[in-house]
């Protein structure tokens, strides 16, 4: 059964086999994607025709590697910018929310707390369409009443940022709240007694204490934004983010360039994940 109990050999073997099979199931699609990024063939499929880096570096008429593929490079840049602003906005508002729910007392706190959790249980597609609708309503209203055309209300870069922010801020709030709960408030009181005002206390003491959580939450927020598809799908304008752009390419047939991008994404996110893990371990010990 468990470590401390005697078990039959067959039981152990079966269990091991199950776990091994699961890990094959887990990693097979990623490994195959990575390997085929280096295959010297026009299609991302076997047979193996030899190793090449051309899907990264080439700039030939019949084969354009990712480093020269302007459309894909542009979409990566768009995703980076979106993720940057989403992270910034979510960190600021999420931290405010953490302070609000952990340290302040006010009427309707419980209700507001549940409202803050709501984005977790709203499907991303629904969040996307309702924000699209609302911005459109606002845009129409502004145009009809005051004859002002507000860029922000039309699908595009900033609407994508706001749409992703609307649910990523919840995650940041939860991560930062968890850390804030462990904070020893006597430290704050001591500082207040010594003549610091509330803002100084938060800036010099509480935020210092929260720093690991802020870094962790920021990394997760960045990644979630960078990879978001469901909400973005409805809010995107002419500047496609990377997932949207990849989706369009995958749907209409694929080339090994997509494998090359996937390879870079897999390596990049794995590094970020391991770094995040390393820092959170260090923080705990």
């Amino acid at each position, binding site marked *: 059964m468990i470590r401390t109990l005697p078990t039959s050999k067959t039981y152990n073997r079966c*269990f091991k086999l199950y776990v091994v099979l699961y890990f094959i199931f887990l990693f097979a699609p990623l490994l195959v994607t990575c390997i085929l990024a280096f295959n010297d063939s026009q299609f991302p499929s076997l047979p193996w025709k030899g190793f090449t880096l051309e899907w990264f570096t080439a700039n030939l008429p019949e084969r354009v590697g990712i480093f020269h593929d302007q459309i894909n490079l542009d979409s990566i840049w768009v995703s980076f910018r979106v993720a940057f602003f989403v992270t910034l906005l979510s960190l600021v508002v999420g931290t405010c929310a953490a302070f609000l729910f952990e340290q302040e007392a006010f009427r309707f706190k419980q209700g507001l707390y549940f409202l803050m959790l709501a984005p977790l249980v709203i499907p991303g597609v629904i969040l996307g369409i309702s924000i699209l609708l609302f911005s459109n309503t606002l845009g129409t209203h502004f145009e009809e009443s005051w004859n002002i055309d507000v860029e922000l209300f039309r699908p595009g870069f900033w609407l994508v940022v706001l749409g992703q922010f609307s649910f990523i801020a919840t995650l940041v709030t939860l991560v930062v709240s968890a850390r804030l709960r462990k904070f020893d408030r006597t430290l704050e009181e001591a500082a207040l007694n010594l003549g610091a005002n509330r803002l100084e206390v938060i800036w010099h003491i509480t935020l210092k204490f929260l720093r690991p959580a802020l870094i962790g939450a920021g990394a997760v927020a960045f990644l979630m934004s960078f990879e978001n598809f469901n909400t973005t799908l409805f809010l995107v304008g002419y500047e496609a983010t990377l997932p949207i752009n990849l989706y369009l390419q995958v749907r209409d047939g694929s080339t090994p360039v997509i494998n090359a991008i996937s390879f870079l994404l897999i390596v990049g996110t794995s590094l970020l994940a391991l770094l995040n893990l390393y820092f959170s371990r260090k923080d705990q010990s």
Partner: protein
Amino acid sequence: MTSHKRWGLFFFLAPVVLWLFVMIVLPHIDLLVMSFRFENDEGQMQWSLNNYLAFFEEPIYWLTFVRTAIYSILVTFLTFVIALPLAFYITKVVNPKYQGFLLVLLLLPFWVSELVRVYGWMILLRESGVINHFLLKAGILRQPIEMLYRDSTMILGLVYTSMLFMVVPIVSVLDSLDNSLIEAAYDLGANMWTILFKIIIPHASPGIMSGSIVVFMLTLGNYLTPNLMGGKNSLWFTEQIYNQFIASFNWNQGSAFGFLLLVLSSIVVWLGLKLTRQNLKKVVQ
């Protein structure tokens, strides 16, 4: 001091209220309002239930809705069945030396974008895919078969995508299960199945429930995986929403669909919480 406190409260409250009302509450009210508006024959907007009536009158709409719900339940169940032994192995069976490593290995693929993971499966499963290549080489198949665009493939993809959200909560509840309970049951002569149903599952039920809620909700709202792995036959309800919004440009009909999906997902979350007597606050932590 009190005016100071008021100021601090306002400082945190303002951005949070702005976020929740502008990005969450108002857009969803707009969604609800839009779903009750209908363009009559003279091209004027009026209040009406037509969008909802259309849903019940067109079998394709409600059948897709029911199909999506049933498949989401199936996916949730399959995910649970696969995740439980795995979580048990990691927490109770494997040498504690490898526990951390296995957990990291388990989480790593889920940091990678869903699109990349689905793309990996497409490369593996399609007619010119890697699995077909090996089956042909081994002489098991004479003709390549199309393994994509079937319901079973779509289910596989959805299970794969949601595994993490089931494994993690179950691992964390099993971690808190005292080994001596299992040992005692074993000493008293209970067999494996009795231990599983009388001790392990009851103890793990909060984790199982929170995992199930998240998996169900994410599956229900998934667009990418059914669309790419199920192809034209996937008939997923989010695709109906997308079609109404982007292809037919019938936003009112789309809003009604969106609202119905939101209601279904909320009911299931609520029921899940009620059945296990938990609250949302606990589940998200």
